[in-house]
C-alpha cells in the first residue's frame, strides 16, 4: 500500500516538474483546433445523398403561396404529392423515393408533373407504387392534380399499378414520388 502511495506521489511530482500550465493550455488548444479541422480532411463523401431539390430551396420561411408542409414528405401538401391517390410511403416505413421493407417497387407507373414552389419549375414525377403487403393505411393522400380519366391510362392514378408488374406482387401498400426530370 505504501509502495502504491509512493508511486502515485512520484508520478504526480514528476508531472508537476515537467509540465507547465502554459503547455497544458497549449495542448488543449491544439486538441480543440485539430478536432475542429478533422471533418475538413478530404475523405470520400460519395455515400452522402445529394440534397433533394426541395431542400436546396430558400433559407428562412416557405416560398410565397406554398401551403404548410410543402417540404415535408410525410405531408399530403408536400409539393411532389400533387398527383398522389394513395398512402404516402414516407409514413409507412419507407421514404418519398424508397419502398418500406418487405415491399417491391412497381416499375410501371402513372406519371405527371408537379410545380416546386422553391424554384417555380415543373418536375416530371413518377408515382411508383410499393407492392406486396396489404395497404399501409397511414397518410392517405388524394390530390389528383392532372390525373386523367381511366380511358387515358398513362396518366391515370385510379389504376392499381401494382398489378401491371411481373416482379412486384399484386397487393398495393403505398406510393412513392420520384423525380425523373424537369418539364422544361
Amino acid at each position, binding site marked *: 500500500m505504501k509502495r502504491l502511495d509512493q508511486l502515485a506521489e512520484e508520478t504526480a511530482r514528476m508531472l508537476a516538474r515537467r509540465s507547465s500550465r502554459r503547455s497544458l493550455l497549449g495542448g488543449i488548444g491544439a486538441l480543440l483546433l485539430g478536432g475542429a479541422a478533422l471533418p475538413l480532411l478530404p475523405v470520400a463523401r460519395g455515400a452522402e445523398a445529394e440534397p433533394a431539390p426541395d431542400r436546396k430551396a430558400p433559407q428562412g420561411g416557405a416560398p410565397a403561396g406554398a401551403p404548410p408542409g410543402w417540404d415535408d414528405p410525410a405531408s399530403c401538401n408536400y409539393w411532389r404529392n400533387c398527383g398522389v391517390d394513395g398512402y404516402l410511403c414516407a409514413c409507412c416505413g419507407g421514404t418519398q423515393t424508397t419502398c418500406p421493407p418487405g415491399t417491391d417497387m412497381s416499375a*410501371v407507373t402513372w406519371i*405527371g408533373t408537379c410545380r416546386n414552389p422553391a424554384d417555380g419549375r415543373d418536375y416530371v414525377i413518377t408515382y411508383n407504387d410499393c407492392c406486396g403487403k396489404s395497404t399501409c393505411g397511414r397518410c392517405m393522400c388524394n390530390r389528383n392534380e392532372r390525373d*386523367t380519366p381511366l380511358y387515358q391510362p*398513362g*396518366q391515370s392514378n385510379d389504376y392499381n399499378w401494382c398489378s401491371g408488374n411481373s416482379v412486384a406482387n399484386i397487393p398495393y401498400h403505398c406510393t412513392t414520388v420520384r423525380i*425523373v*426530370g424537369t*418539364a422544361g
Partner: protein
Amino acid sequence: MRSRTLFALVVVGLCGALPARAYEPAVNYQLHCMGCHLADGTGDAERLPSMRGTLVPFSALPAGRDYLLRVPGVSQSPLSDADLAVLMNWMVRNLSDVPVPANFVDYTPAEVGRARQQPLAQVTALRARLLELTR
C-alpha cells in the same frame, strides 16, 4: 385607346387558341409513354414487348408505320398530330437498338393524323404478322 383594347383582345384570343403547353419530345415520352414502356423502351418482358428492336424495322414498312401509329398508346394519346410526329421521330432515334438507316423517312403530322383515325383493337396478332414480315 380603342385600338389598344382591340389589340389586347386579339392577343388574349390568340393565347387562348394555342395548346396549353408544348413540351420537348423527351418530356412527352416521359409523360405519355414511359409509365409503361419504361425510360429506355424495354417495357415488360411478359406483357409489354420491348420497342428497341422493332421501331426501325417496322418504320421501314408501310404496314409497320401504320401499326405504330394505330396502337392505342399512340392513336389515342392526348398529343396533337404534330407533337406525335416529333415524338415518333425522337423515339426512332433515341430508343432503337437497330441503327437508323440514312434513307429513313420521318413521320409527318399528316401521316400521323390519317393513321390515328382508326385505332387498333387487336394489337397482338398484327404485331406477330409484322414480326414475320421483318424477320
